[in-house]
């Protein structure tokens, strides 16, 4: 990827993503943290576009920003007395050390391995191909995923169901 536009876009997006992610861990207010998380998600979506994964990029925006961030906000708003602070617990230093270690190892591996880089260009159209793959080769995992989603919905509803709730709709 030597295209000037892509390179510039990559560096901007990379700075945005990593900067926002670092701020997510650093800011004190949880709501600010979630807002920065949204920025980080958007940056990752931009990186997907530079990787010519347009379908995944859009899905990233749709699911991560449109759904998961909202769920996180719900989790904060529905627990008003629990505090909105994003502070660290007693695990601060070990966690930091472990995180640096893991990330360092991965970076080292990334640079140390000689990857079998292919010479092909980015994908032309991914959505149709992904659809074909999902319904053909990965049909079974696809079905399992739908079952997983269903059980997650049912589980979530059962979990927050008030005790002694009457049967049927209110």
């Amino acid at each position, binding site marked *: 990827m030597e295209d000037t536009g892509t390179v510039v876009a990559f560096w901007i997006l990379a700075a945005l993503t990593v900067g926002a992610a670092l701020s997510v861990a650093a800011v004190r207010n949880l709501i600010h943290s979630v807002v920065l998380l949204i920025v980080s998600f958007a940056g990752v979506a931009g990186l997907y576009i530079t990787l010519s994964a347009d379908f995944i990029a859009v899905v990233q925006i749709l699911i991560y920003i449109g759904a998961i961030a909202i769920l996180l*906000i719900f989790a904060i708003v529905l627990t008003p007395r629990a505090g909105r602070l994003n502070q660290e617990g007693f695990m601060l230093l070990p966690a930091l050390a472990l995180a640096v270690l893991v990330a360092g190892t991965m970076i080292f591996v990334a640079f140390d391995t000689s990857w079998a880089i292919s010479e092909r260009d980015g994908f032309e159209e991914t959505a149709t191909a992904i659809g074909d793959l999902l319904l053909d080769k990965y049909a079974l995992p696809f079905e399992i995923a739908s079952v997983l989603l269903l059980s997650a919905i049912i589980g979530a509803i059962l979990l927050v169901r008030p005790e002694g709730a009457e049967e049927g709709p209110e």
Partner: protein
Amino acid sequence: MAIILSGEWYDLRDLANPIRELIDALGAPDAVDYVLWSLIAALAILIWLVVSVIAFIWIERRLVALMQNRKGPNRVGPAGLLQPIADAIKLLLKEAITTRDADRILFWLAPIIVFIPTIVVFAVVPFGESMVLADLNVGVLFLIAVAGIMTPAVFIAGWSSNNKYALLAAMRAIAMLISYELIQVLALLAAVLFIGSMNLQAFVSWQDEYNTWLIFILPLPVVAYVIAGAVEINRSPMDLSEAESELAAGYHTEYGGIKFGFFYQAEYMAGFAIAATVTTLFLGGWTLWGLEEWIPGWIIFLGKLYAVFFLYIWSRGTLPRLRIDQLMAFAWKFMLPLMLVNALVIAVEVVVWEETGASRNVALPAIGAVNATLAVILVIGWARVLGHGSGLQRGYRATLTREIGKIYYTGAEVS
């Protein structure tokens, strides 16, 4: 002269073509060329949006005034035409108040975030044959995904104001937007199933090629999309998150001056975005059965877009507002099953058409008729199943009597 004789004269009317020619003539390197072209297009879209919003502030106020037996703005300039500008100046000159306990950063950020999705949507909308900023392969999905950014923006606005009306409205808005996003997705899914592509230009060219509009073939998804769009842009009867009579101004209660102006403008822009989507996907976009040869495509497109937007003005001048639980019930109990059945039916139809290989002159009217009939049957039948038109959903007149002191109470049904 040469251009007119060569038969490409109407190309000039498609504003994108001369501009591209011009930039090509400059002979700049590709990168500069690309950036220049994008900048001009983006600027053009922005200018069009701002002008349209200003125009429609006046048009909406005059139209609603017409529906309400009054004159509307008629003092500033001829026929009140300068009223939006006067309003804009007023908003600009007002003090930008930040309430003391507001979350200052987010409070200022929210009006800006709200702008992003409404403008970005237009990047994929084809205004004309070559007038599209980004010809995305997943354009339809992009429309939905970008509109989803609205949700956190509205929440941030409501939450950061530290106002109870605003927070209540923000919670309502989140619940509403998430529910109706589902309806939007299912409505567009039906269309995508039929066309077999998520590219917006492909939609337009399909409708051009088959000489029909998708609205005639898929009536139910269009209605569902327009209704879900009303939720997204807070138009009555779904304007719950800024319900004037309940929550003052909803999530932007604490916003004044230009920050309020941003919300106001973003709302119109989102309305145009919905209208643009409906136009492109279901109303043939910039084509009009061959007339695009003579009239520039973007004029046709804008005409259709404004016509769709008029629906929202009309509903605002006419309809009362639903309650939040009724709105959610409408989404989950009424629209969702209907849209699922509809998507299934359309998938079956597409397969049957492919298998039988029927000619389009037979297949399209047949599918359209089936879908229209099915839509009517489904809507009426499902409404009956849900108990519509009986019990608490039935209207009546008052009982008249001449006897004093008698009690006519028959026992109330409580909702």
